[in-house]
């Protein structure tokens, strides 16, 4: 009887295992496998569908044009719902597939990034944060496997404050001003605070922190507090189009001027602005990848991939939107890193390992000329990675919503005092290294 029961159990287990195992395709030519840990459902779906849609579109586009030196790109998708717990499951599921191990992972979310960040070293996988995630990972000596090619939150808040200072007519005019930092009450919302507090102290600015509990749809009392505080500026650090559009409608309700309101990159998409209607007009937002369809690569993808009916977006009009272009930027960096890795390790036309891919990502040198060549000149800020510097350009552009689309205000800007930001990063990374008994590597 026991035997029978065990047998039956084994049969059930093996059936489930067989159903779960992904079919292995017959490999006719060299391929390189990428994971798509997408977040297409839930409050953050606008982000996930645009960003991961662009990544898939670009992989398709590369394949249609002969791959990376003949290496075709494959991918598997897994739904994380922007949930840290599910991201871990997806990471493990996507880790091995198509007969290969992943070389890179991209969670498009700080919670997910934190959940997998400590596995990167052991698994030899690059965590390509693209404008989100753990800030002090910009210190490549402590975090060899983690990169942030699109600028981190500490630079971003510093650029925001630089923009305010410019609007006020200089840093000296900032003394005595009051800034409200309204943020979602999560690690992501609090991430910019160390840099913000430091700069505010140096400038003599008062910072009032107001937290909004997730998912952030209830903000009435917080905005009443804003009305009492009468701040000169509000930096809004939200997530999801629900929270972001609610912020602007509430600002309109208390009569807070929208051109004193600056949104974070994760509230800076068309999908965040439309629901707020007229209340959104005039709101400033930060960009690490500018929207627009006039970039040659965007046009080419639209013609080739969507022309062939293989586009990933259900709504083609979202091509060139903020999240789609950001995803495109992220995917471009993967492919460039793969190209670098193939060349550096004498593997042109062959798949590379995680360690080789890491070297390739660290060797990224996206000059203006190279960006032009790829067809995204001007869409992202030029940058160069190095052994120590894993933080990308650290430059952001300010955009303003005109009710219909974002209008760029000024050029790519870096923090007024980049050395101070760097110092904060080094300190924080050193603290992490000490707590976890890590020896930072020495860079040449």
């Amino acid at each position, binding site marked *: 009887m026991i035997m029978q029961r065990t047998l039956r159990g084994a049969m059930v287990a093996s059936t489930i295992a067989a*159903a779960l195992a992904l079919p292995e395709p017959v490999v006719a030519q060299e391929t390189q496998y990428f994971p798509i840990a997408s977040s297409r459902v839930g409050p953050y*779906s606008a982000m996930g569908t645009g960003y991961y849609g662009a990544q898939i579109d670009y992989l398709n586009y590369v394949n249609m044009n002969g791959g990376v030196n003949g290496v075709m790109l494959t991918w598997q998708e897994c739904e994380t719902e922007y949930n*840290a717990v599910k991201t871990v*499951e997806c990471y493990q599921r996507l880790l091995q597939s198509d007969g290969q191990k992943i070389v890179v992972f991209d969670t498009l979310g700080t919670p997910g990034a934190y959940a997998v960040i400590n596995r990167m070293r052991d698994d030899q996988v690059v965590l390509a944060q693209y404008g989100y995630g753990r800030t002090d990972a910009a210190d490549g000596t402590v975090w060899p496997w983690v990169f942030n090619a699109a600028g981190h939150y500490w630079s971003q808040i510093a650029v925001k404050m630089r923009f305010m200072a410019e609007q006020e007519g200089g840093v000296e005019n900032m003394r005595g001003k009051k800034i409200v930092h309204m943020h979602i009450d999560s690690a992501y919302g609090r991430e910019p605070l160390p840099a913000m507090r430091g700069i505010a102290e140096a400038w003599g600015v008062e910072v009032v922190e107001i937290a909004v509990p997730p998912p952030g749809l209830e903000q009435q009392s917080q905005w009443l507090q804003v009305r009492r505080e009468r701040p000169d500026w509000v930096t809004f650090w939200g997530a999801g189009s629900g929270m972001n559009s609610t912020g602007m409608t509430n600002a309109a309700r208390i009569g807070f001027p929208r051109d004193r309101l600056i949104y974070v990159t994760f509230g800076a998409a068309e999908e965040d602005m439309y629901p707020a209607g007229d209340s959104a007009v005039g709101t400033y937002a930060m960009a690490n990848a500018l929207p627009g369809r006039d970039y040659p690569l965007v046009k080419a993808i639209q013609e080739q991939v969507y022309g062939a009916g293989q586009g990933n977006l*259900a709504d083609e009009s979202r091509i060139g939107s903020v999240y789609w272009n950001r995803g495109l930027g992220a995917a471009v960096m993967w492919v460039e890193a793969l190209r670098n890795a193939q060349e550096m390790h004498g593997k042109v036309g062959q798949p590379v390992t995680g360690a080789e891919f890491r070297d390739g990502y660290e060797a990224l040198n996206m000059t203006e000329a190279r960006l032009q060549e790829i067809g995204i000149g001007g869409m992202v800020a030029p940058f160069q990675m190095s052994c120590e510097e894993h933080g990308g350009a650290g430059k952001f552009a300010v955009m303003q919503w005109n009710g219909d689309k974002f209008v760029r205000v000024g050029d790519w800007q870096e923090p007024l005092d980049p050395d101070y930001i760097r110092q904060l990063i080094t300190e924080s990374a050193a603290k992490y290294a000490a707590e976890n008994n890590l020896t930072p590597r020495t860079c040449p």
Partner: protein
Amino acid sequence: MSDKPIFMTFARSDVTNFVVLMIVAFAVIPLTVGSDYWYTSILIPWLCLALAAIGQQIVMGYTGQLALGAAGFMAAGAFACFNLELRVPGLPFAGSLLLSGVIAAAFGVLFGLPSLRVRGIYLMVATLASQFFIIWMIDKFGWFKNYDTSGIITAQDIEIFGRPFTSPVEMYLVVAVVVIVLTIPAINLTRGAVGRSWMAVRDMDIAAESMGISLLRTKLLAFAISAFYCGVAGALFAFTYLKSLEPVAFDIKLSFEILFMVILGGLGTINGAFIGAAFILLFPVVLNSLGNTYFHGMIDATIMSAIEQVVFGALIILFLIYEPLGMSKLWTNLRQRMFSRKRAGDARALRKPAG
């Protein structure tokens, strides 16, 4: 008649079940499952959440107190374990686990107090406070997170007798041992005098009180033990599965999931906690996996993701309509049907109390 269960002792079928499960857990699985995915993403979270579901089962299934906030106690346990490991040098991991359970239990008593005054759906609202208060407290006071700027901290490696347990199989074994060590007393408690008084309170608290059962003692004990299980589960969940600690991971959604595990698994059963946890945790994974395997590229991926959720929701409704007593009952019925043909005379033996 030798199979007739006597309270606090075990029938022969219990022992055979136990032996079979032990062989599966410590011999069959480690020897046959080679993929890390199965350990890190299926077995470890399943066992951790099943343990939390046992906690929920005790307070809700056995004592009948509609409590919602298991994830809050899990967070308390997880952060207690982190701080114990960090601040108490030389404390063995088992000690940290035990103490974090005790700390969570203290919160359990605190938030169980309203149960003496309010009941039913009102109690559910009152216990929600634990969920929000514990998370708020951890967020508010930097000490709990060792003043980490980002608020997400890395869990320390598990070390037992100086030997690190970091590979997926090793962590699975740690979790399995803890879950077994805690499940046996849970079964014992529910079958013993304590469990009887819990059930008496559940079925009619006024009658129970008139028979000399102290409501204060019984209810608070249930809350304490429930929170203890949730606390240990939370610590294991953070240390073996997430490997990082973030309050947001223990949000209200997780509390609801644990509640659903208990309801779907079968109220007032311990094996229901395991079955319910498996269903709630694994079914979305299976659906997502099937969707990506067989419909990859055929349907728009966004619609596919939405369909998975619809199917999952429909399945829950179907289960509740056709088997309101939960999957544990389904399992009992199935077993009865399978064995009754051969052992028709022994059907009596299967009619043992739930558990």
